[in-house]
């Protein structure tokens, strides 16, 4: 197990290296540059290029960047003058993580419950209700969901704060808005997966052995049915924590999504790369955890101990 994990970590680092290199190249292929502005003159541009070291050969810039990266230094942002990428991430990530975790907790807990309940009560009214909830969730884009929630709960009825993120009441609308799609996705996948599992032999066997209904559902069905959900949760976790641009904009939350999109839009090379490294590390870690979780959750997969 230890060796397996060590090997996975080494491979993850190699993956990151490739990722950084690819994005380093891609970002420079983008049309335009970080200095473009309505009032840019060739002279000022030249000064800026020298200041940021862009007058040097690209390979040298790359090596300089990698050298700093190894030391954990992501460099200075270009759009937010005088601020390091490390500082930006350190300030923004807690907001996104908090929002993302709340959204995921709502999505996974409610989604799984709905999926299981609806699969066990197939073709009954309660199934229909669960399916309708799931469909509403996957039928409405996040920005419509965000605006609608904000409009009714915040503006029209005044029940919850309209925007910003400064206390529990503030977190409710954005986390529901963010989590609803995932909730629906989880519940539908879980329902499908449960229906698949119901017909498996081991379920019949367990039933034949006289196991209680609750025990069968809990021990045999959910445990096997949850696998496809675990698979999709890795990327979903990453995307919930990265792709919150829309919700963050609507609710004025200073999280990562905003920086991510604006860094690409303003071609802030160091910030784009810094964010990519951060999310890349996040992603490979999430995948690592998913792979290890597979070993824990799936009764048939066991990583050899040693």
């Amino acid at each position, binding site marked *: 197990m230890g060796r397996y994990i060590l090997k996975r970590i080494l491979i993850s680092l190699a993956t990151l290296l490739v990722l950084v290199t690819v994005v380093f190249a*891609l970002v420079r292929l983008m049309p335009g540059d970080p200095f473009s502005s309505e009032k840019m003159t060739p002279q000022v541009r030249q000064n800026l290029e020298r200041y940021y070291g862009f007058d040097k050969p690209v390979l040298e810039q790359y090596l300089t960047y990698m050298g700093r990266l190894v030391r954990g230094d992501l460099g200075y942002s270009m759009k937010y003058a005088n601020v390091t990428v490390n500082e930006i991430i350190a300030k923004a990530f807690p907001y996104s993580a908090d929002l993302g975790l709340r959204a995921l907790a709502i999505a996974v807990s409610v989604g799984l419950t709905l999926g299981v309940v609806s699969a066990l009560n197939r073709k009954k009214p309660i199934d229909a209700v669960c*399916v309708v909830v799931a*469909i509403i969730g996957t*039928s409405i884009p996040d920005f419509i969901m965000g*605006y609608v929630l904000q409009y009714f709960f915040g503006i029209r009825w005044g029940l919850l704060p309209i925007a910003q993120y400064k206390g529990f009441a503030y977190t409710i609308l954005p986390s529901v808005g963010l989590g609803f799609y995932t909730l629906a996705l989880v519940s539908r996948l879980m329902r499908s997966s449960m229906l698949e599992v119901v017909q498996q032999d081991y379920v019949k066997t367990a039933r034949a052995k006289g196991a209680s209904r609750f025990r069968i559902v809990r021990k045999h069905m959910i445990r096997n049915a949850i696998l496809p959900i675990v698979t*999709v949760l890795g990327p979903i976790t990453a995307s919930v924590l990265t792709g919150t641009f829309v919700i963050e904009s609507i609710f004025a939350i200073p999280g990562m999504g905003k920086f991510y999109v604006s860094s690409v839009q303003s071609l802030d090379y160091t910030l784009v790369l810094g964010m990519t490294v951060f999310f890349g590390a996040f992603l490979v870690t999430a995948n690592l955890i998913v792979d290890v979780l597979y070993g824990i959750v799936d009764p048939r997969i066991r990583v050899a101990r040693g």
Partner: protein
Amino acid sequence: MEAIGDAPDRSLFERVGKDRAGMEAIERPNLTYWQDAWRRLKANRMAVFALCVVGLYVVMAVVGPWMTSYSYTATDAKATDALPSAAHWFGTDMLGRDLWSRVWMGARTSLMIGFVATLLNTLVGGLIGGVAGYYGGAVDMVLMRVVDVLYGIPYIIVAILMMVVMEPGMGSLIVAMVVTRWIGMARFVRGEVMRVKESDFVAAARVLGASDATILVRHIMPNLMGLIITNTMMAIPNAIFTEAFLSFIGLGIQPPECSWGLLAREGSQTLSIYPLKLFFPAFFISTTMLALNLLGDGLRDALDPRLRGE
């Protein structure tokens, strides 16, 4: 073959022989897998209804814009943000353009992107995920690391680069979506293949000497068809929403074309004063998704090999 013992009068009998044709004849018409699936799908009333809705929208996407005399691009300074009327059935948008024709022009874009991008994603992702999951080991490791790298690249960058390489528009959008979005399907299929490949019927096929390709295509994939289809149906709204998001940050459909996502985005800007401008696109997006979901459910049941002949 000669009879033994006292032989009856042979003239009373006539030799029948083997009816080789009759032996193999099947009384009821022989159904292929797909015919059977279609038969079962037809029996599912909700799925048929859903199919009709999707069909209706596709037809309307073709003929809808021509049912009114207003072009989807004609602006009118005197009729901006109008409510539905005899002239403008769905009202007009902020530039005074007829929303009825825009909704159906948007349907063309959204449905096209939704279906084409998702289909390509499923094909590419399913194939790569299937291979990775089936072979496991080094192949899996390499493919999954490639996936990790691709997943880590901000897709806005890919979308922008696609716009530079290709002409901005639907084509570059679809390519950008496929380049970045097949990964989800690949990961999903990989996980499922890893699960199913340990099943007895796979072991049996292997013992019987079936090739890897046969096992993957004939034995494993049909068993995953239900989940893949459900997942694909769920991915269609995702593609439509992604287009809306990309339009929102300026990387979408080029003016004066429009899409449902774009109309919804425009409508959401003035939700508190002109709610209908959000309602129409949101209604069509949601009902399309509803229909696709019901259809996905129906297909899931219809394509499940274990439910065959029920």
